[in-house]
């Protein structure tokens, strides 16, 4: 029976370490690049409040979003740990897609809410709120991510 208990303990150890690695991949992201990405995102939103044509405002917004995406990708690549593709299961992509959809819905909700008011720098405010809420949702994302390989 010792072999079996040993095997049980081994499998439990493997599961524990996998969770640690997945946790490390999100916790160990490069903070500088993540912060730069957030700033680029904010700048993109703020560009929509500039007194320029709508087309130019939108173009600047998309440039900000692309720059943010590049920064976030770099933050992931410069992490202390990079997840192996074997960990990116269907459940992983489902969590990632779900979080992206939730973020999109949140953004539309915020834009609708702010549109009901007549405050200045509305887009910038949406950007600030969005960045804060995304940062606040990070622990939830980590918990969900951990469940993808269990």
């Amino acid at each position, binding site marked *: 029976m010792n072999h079996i208990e040993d095997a049980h303990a081994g499998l439990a*150890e493997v599961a524990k370490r996998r969770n640690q690695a997945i946790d490390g991949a999100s916790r160990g992201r490069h903070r500088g690049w993540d912060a730069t990405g957030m700033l680029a995102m904010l700048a993109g939103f703020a560009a929509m409040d500039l007194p320029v044509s709508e087309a130019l405002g939108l173009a600047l917004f998309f440039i900000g979003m692309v720059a943010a995406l590049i920064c976030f990708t770099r933050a992931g690549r410069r992490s202390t740990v990079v997840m192996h593709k074997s960990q990116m299961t269907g459940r992983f992509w489902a969590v990632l897609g779900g979080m992206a959809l939730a973020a999109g819905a949140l953004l539309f909700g915020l834009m609708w809410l702010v549109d009901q008011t007549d405050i200045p720098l509305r887009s910038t405010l949406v950007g600030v709120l969005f960045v804060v809420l995304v940062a606040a949702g990070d622990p939830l994302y980590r918990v969900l991510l951990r469940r993808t390989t269990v």
Partner: protein
Amino acid sequence: MTTPAGFDELIHPPTRLGLMALLAATEWAEFSFLKESLELTDSALSKQVSTLSDAGYAEIRKEGAGRRRHTLVTLTPQGRKAFDGHVEALRQLVNRAPSVSASGAAPRETR
């Protein structure tokens, strides 16, 4: 009891199994992350990594320079294959449990 195919004595000790499991879940991991996760000293981790490296299971890469120098550890394809085989062997051992313990008693479901 016979040991299932794929069971690897080199991987099996708890610390090394933990290290292999961490590396298997990652493309690569920084030495500092492995040290913190496994709660090992620099020298103890170095020893474990060297053992895996000597067996052809792990590779060590150094990146950057000066203060930003990082030591990265990654599993080789051979190491990944050995780890997968070992985990499969552990699963087989666990699944065999009912037939082994069935010495008169009814087998118990494991899954």
